[in-house]
C-alpha cells in the first residue's frame, strides 16, 4: 500500500482502552468486527471502459472490472455493502437504447445492496424509472423525495437497515432539488423536502429508535457549490447534523482523492466521500469495531 497515510485523530489510547475493556466484560465472546462499505456514484451508463483514445480517461472504468474488484473484496470480507449514490442513468447510448435496463441488470449481478435516486434517473420520466424497476434486485432509498402521488409510491423507502456480523447499519437516501434541474413533466408530482431537516429526523430515528451501530447517508445533493456557497450540500449537511458516520455523495462529480473529515453539530467526526463519476473509481470505507465501551473523549481513529 503506497498511498499516503496519516492518522487524523491520534487515538493511541483507544486501543489501550479497548483492550482494557475486555477484562471488564461479564462475558468475553465479543470479537473485533469489520464492516466494509463500497460505493459508486454518477456512473451515468458507463458500462464499457473508456476507449484507448479517450483524452482524459483512457482504458479506465468498466463494469466487468468493477465486478472482479467487488467480488475480491467481498471474498476478503463478506460483511460488505455495495451502495450507489444515484445518476445511474444517462451518458452512453446504452441508456438511449435500453432505457436503463442493462444498468439495473448489471448492478443486480454485482449484488448492489442499495441505491438512491439522482436527477438523471428521471431522464426518461418517472414512468421510465418505474418501468425499469423489475430489472433491479436491489432497493432504492430516498428520505426527502415524497413519491406519494407518483407511480414510484411504495417503491422507494426512506431508509433501509442491514445486519452484518451482528452490526446494524442504517442507510437513508437524499435527493437533489428537482425544480430548475429536471423538467416537471419528468418528475411529475415528486415532492422535494429539505435535506437537512430530513437528515436530522433520519439520523435520530436510525440511531435512537433503530439502534443502528452505523448510520450512512446516501446523498445525491452534491458535495459543495463553490459559486453558490449557500446551497445545501454534503459539507453543510455534515455540519448541521449528528449521528451520521458516513455521507456517500454524488451529483457534483467530485473526485475526492480521499474522504473528507468534517465535524458535525456536536463536534464529532463525519466522513464524506464521493468518487467522481463514470465508474472510474470504487470508494471503500472500512469500519472496525472492537470489544469494550466507547470512550467519550476519543472517537474512532480515522486513517485516510
Amino acid at each position: 500500500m503506497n498511498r499516503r497515510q496519516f492518522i487524523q485523530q491520534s487515538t493511541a489510547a483507544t486501543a489501550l482502552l479497548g483492550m482494557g475493556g475486555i477484562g471488564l466484560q461479564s462475558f468475553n465472546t465479543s470479537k473485533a468486527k469489520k464492516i466494509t462499505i463500497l460505493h459508486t456514484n454518477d456512473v451515468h451508463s458507463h458500462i464499457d471502459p473508456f476507449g484507448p483514445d479517450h483524452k482524459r480517461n483512457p482504458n479506465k472504468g468498466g463494469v466487468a472490472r468493477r465486478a472482479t474488484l467487488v467480488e475480491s473484496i467481498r471474498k476478503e470480507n463478506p460483511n460488505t455493502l455495495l451502495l450507489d449514490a444515484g445518476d445511474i442513468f444517462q451518458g452512453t447510448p446504452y441508456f438511449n437504447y435500453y432505457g436503463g435496463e442493462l444498468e439495473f441488470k448489471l448492478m443486480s449481478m454485482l449484488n448492489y445492496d442499495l441505491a438512491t435516486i439522482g436527477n438523471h434517473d428521471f431522464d426518461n420520466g418517472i414512468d421510465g424509472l418505474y418501468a425499469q424497476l423489475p430489472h433491479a434486485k436491489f432497493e432504492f432509498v430516498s428520505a426527502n423525495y415524497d413519491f406519494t402521488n407518483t407511480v414510484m409510491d411504495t417503491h422507494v423507502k426512506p431508509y433501509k437497515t442491514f445486519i452484518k456480523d451482528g452490526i446494524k447499519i442504517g442507510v437513508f437516501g437524499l435527493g437533489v432539488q428537482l425544480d430548475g434541474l429536471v423538467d416537471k413533466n419528468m418528475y411529475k408530482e415528486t415532492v422535494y423536502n429539505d435535506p437537512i431537516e430530513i437528515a436530522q429526523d433520519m439520523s435520530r430515528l436510525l440511531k435512537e429508535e433503530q439502534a443502528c451501530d452505523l448510520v450512512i447517508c446516501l446523498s445525491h445533493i452534491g458535495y459543495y457549490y463553490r459559486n453558490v456557497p449557500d446551497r445545501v450540500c454534503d459539507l453543510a449537511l455534515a455540519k448541521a447534523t449528528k449521528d451520521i458516520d458516513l455521507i456517500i455523495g454524488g451529483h457534483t462529480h467530485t473526485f475526492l482523492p480521499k474522504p473528507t473529515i468534517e465535524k458535525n453539530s456536536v463536534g464529532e467526526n463525519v466522513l464524506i466521500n464521493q468518487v467522481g463519476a463514470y465508474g472510474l473509481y470504487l470508494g471503500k470505507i472500512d469500519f472496525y469495531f472492537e470489544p469494550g465501551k466507547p470512550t467519550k473523549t476519543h472517537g474512532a481513529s480515522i486513517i485516510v
Partner: protein
Amino acid sequence: MTIKHIFKLYFLVFVFSCNNDLHLSKIEGERIEIDAAIASDSDIENFIKPYRENVNKNLDSVISYAPDTYSKSDGEFNTAIGNLMADAVFEESNPIFNKRTGKTIDLVLLNYGGIRSIISQGNIKIRTAFEVMPFENSVVVVAIKGQQVLQMMDYLSKDKRAHPVSKHLQLSLNKNSEVTKATISGKPIDKGTTYYVATNDYLYNGGDRMDFFHPNDSFYVLDYKIRNVLIDYFKRKDTIRPKRDNRYIKLED
C-alpha cells in the same frame, strides 16, 4: 410463548448486549482506481456482449452520405453544419407542430455550443447524430412578440457566434456589428406580431443567456429530441448538401 421463542428472545438479547460491548475503533477510507490492471469478470462481460453488439450495429448503420466535412468553425456568422441543423429542426418539427396547433414555425434558433462534433466526409451513421448531439435536449416552440425577436437579433449581433438559424432569417450587420437588415421570410420583423420560434429546451430555460424567450404568449413541448430530428433528417436524405449562405452575414464596407 414456547421454549423456542424464549430461546430466540434470549439469543436476541445476547446478541445485542454483546454489540453494546463493541465500539467503533477505527475507520479506513480509500478509493480504488478501476483500470486495465483489473481483469474483467467474464460472466459480466458475456452478459454485456449482445447488448453492445446490438447497440454498435445500430449506431454503425449508414443512414446518409456527407460529400464533405462540415465543422462549426467553417464560418464566422453561419456555417453549413449549423444551417443544416436549424433547417432540419424546421423540416422535421414543423409538420408535427402544424398538425397539433394549425400554426407554422416562423424561425429556428439553436446554439453554437450545441454542435458537439463535426460531420466527416463519407457515410453518415446513427452514431454521427449521437456525436453531433450527445445531449438529450428537445425541440420546443415559443410564441414571442416581434419586440423579443428584435432582442434576439441584438443578441446575435453582440454575441458574434454562428448560432444556427433557419433559412427564414436574413440578418445583416454593418462593419460596426449593428443590425442593418432583419427579415423573417422576406418581411421586416414587426414589434407587435407574434412569431413562433423553435429552439431547444436548454435555450428556452435561459441557456447561453438567451433571455428573450420570456415572457411568452404560449409554449409548446414537441417531445422530439434534437438527436432524433437529425436521425430522421439524415434518413430522408440520400446525401446531405448543407451550404453556408447569406442568412446571417456581416458586411465589411
